[in-house]
């Protein structure tokens, strides 16, 4: 792997950029691996990267049904934050945020992580109390959080509508300064390049069709490109987790829903931070290309179709236009949906299963992108050691039988 640097850029510029090496290869599937990761999104590729880097497992493969980063990794609104209410959640998301802070250097790949801050708005005194409570919880958990009133908000984001006479007036908000956005594709590509360099096989267009399970232990994976023998399988398939679980006769507490996002035509920089509102359920940031990136809540019904329904984005846009009147005549360029796996307590599942050697990392629902590095890091630990990392121990499947749920619905911020 050629190191990316200013010197490499200069050298390749002189060669008219004809000789850049391929960032990752297209290897042929081997008949057996020490571990197989199913799902070539950010989480799966990060898992493979850390398995190879930190746990010395080089004979591993990432199987991807389509192309890497083509699922929810390429469909989210790229927001990264860690200001969750419960200590278990703050633990794993803050772990991820710390990894984000050094990720471009770690991967020698610019993931364009921009700590421009994330603001969660409050629209009434009740919501203000809830959000202030979350600030105190965050501070106790070592997560940076502060309250910002209307004056500070107008300085942080001049286009925000602070008129007290709108339907849902803004009374203030929480600010996490270390939060921000990252380039979603770059995260998948950076981890893929890093993993490939460490010998990991990234197999695209390879759909898993079944598992070989004998006496309660995983022995292999059947795929559209042939059968593989392996003692360890990590499934990181977001919206399709239930489908893969069914192949092993396992049921998960998940529902798959479309989560929509849309972008406007590109405009000059007007949005210096990320603003989210749970009350009116909309969030917005601006990409480096100038597009306003807007997100919504999930569509209400179960669906595996990667498209959403118009009433949902209509409601989102209604909220955006009230919060940011400057956007009222902008054209929207593209709209899409990803299939997210919603868990009853809005927390992920990073867990072993009744089948020995078969692990699931799923249930991230609407907020998985921000967790990508942390999720991969602890899932690699879980796979390598056959035991959870302390940070993902609370997120085992057993919690749905013991009752020890990590309830993040509404508490932390339903919007992502």
């Amino acid at each position, binding site marked *: 792997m050629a190191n990316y640097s200013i010197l490499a850029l200069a050298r390749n510029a002189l060669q008219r950029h004809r000789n850049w090496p391929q960032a990752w290869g297209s290897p042929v599937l081997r008949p057996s691996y020490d571990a197989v990761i199913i799902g070539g999104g950010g989480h799966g590729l990060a898992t493979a990267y850390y398995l190879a880097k930190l746990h010395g497992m080089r004979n591993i493969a990432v199987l991807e049904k389509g192309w890497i980063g083509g699922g929810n990794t390429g469909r989210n609104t790229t927001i990264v934050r860690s200001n969750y209410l419960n200590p278990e959640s703050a633990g794993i998301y803050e772990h991820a945020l710390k990894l984000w802070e050094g990720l471009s250097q770690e991967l020698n790949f610019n993931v364009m992580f921009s700590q421009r801050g994330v603001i969660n708005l409050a629209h009434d005194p009740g919501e203000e109390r809830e959000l202030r409570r979350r600030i105190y919880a965050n501070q106790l958990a070592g997560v940076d959080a502060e309250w910002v009133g209307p004056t500070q908000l107008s300085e942080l984001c001049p286009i925000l509508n602070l008129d007290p006479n709108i339907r849902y007036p803004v009374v203030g908000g929480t600010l996490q300064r270390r939060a921000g956005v990252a380039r979603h594709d770059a995260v998948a590509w950076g981890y893929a390049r890093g993993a490939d360099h460490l010998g990991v096989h990234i197999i695209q267009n390879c759909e898993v069709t079944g598992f070989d399970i004998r006496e309660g232990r995983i022995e292999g994976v059947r795929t559209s490109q042939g059968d593989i023998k392996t003692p360890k399988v990590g499934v990181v398939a977001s919206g399709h987790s239930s489908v893969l679980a069914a192949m092993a006769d396992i*049921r998960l507490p*998940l529902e*798959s829903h479309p989560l929509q996002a849309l972008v406007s035509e590109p405009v000059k920089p007007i949005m210096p931070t990320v603003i989210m509102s749970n009350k009116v359920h909309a969030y917005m940031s601006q990409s480096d290309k100038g597009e306003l990136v807007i997100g919504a809540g999930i569509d209400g*019904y*179960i669906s595996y179709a990667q498209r959403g*329904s*118009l009433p949902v984005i209509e409601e989102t846009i209604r909220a955006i236009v009230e919060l940011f009147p400057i956007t009222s005549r902008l054209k929207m360029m593209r709209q899409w949906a990803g299939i997210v796996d919603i868990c009853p307590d809005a927390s992920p599942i990073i867990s072993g299963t009744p089948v020995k050697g078969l692990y699931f990392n799923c249930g991230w629902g609407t907020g998985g992108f921000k967790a990508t590095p942390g999720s991969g890091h602890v899932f690699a630990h879980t796979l390598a050691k056959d035991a959870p990392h302390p940070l993902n121990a609370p997120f085992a499947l057993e919690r*749905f*039988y013991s*009752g020890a749920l990590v309830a993040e619905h509404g508490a932390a911020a339903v919007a992502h």
Partner: protein
Amino acid sequence: MLLLDCPWCGPRSEEEFSCGGEGHIVRPTASAEMDDQAWGDYVFMRTNTKGMQLERWRHANGCGRWFNMARSTTTHEIVAVYKVGDDKPELPK
């Protein structure tokens, strides 16, 4: 956007409805004897079908009543709408 056929009110826009998820999940009768495993399975575990699914809907902003529907989760095609308590419909393969 879906046009849903409420068994009582007729075809209405999807905005009037809320989806109640997987249908035909029967509350266990012998609940006092159930262990944690059985409770967890009943309360939380779902099939989350990819394809034709029987599910519960409510005409929330209309008559307010629950009903059942057979709908594809991949194409969103609705093949049957039936009342709570009715038999499961024949599904196309």
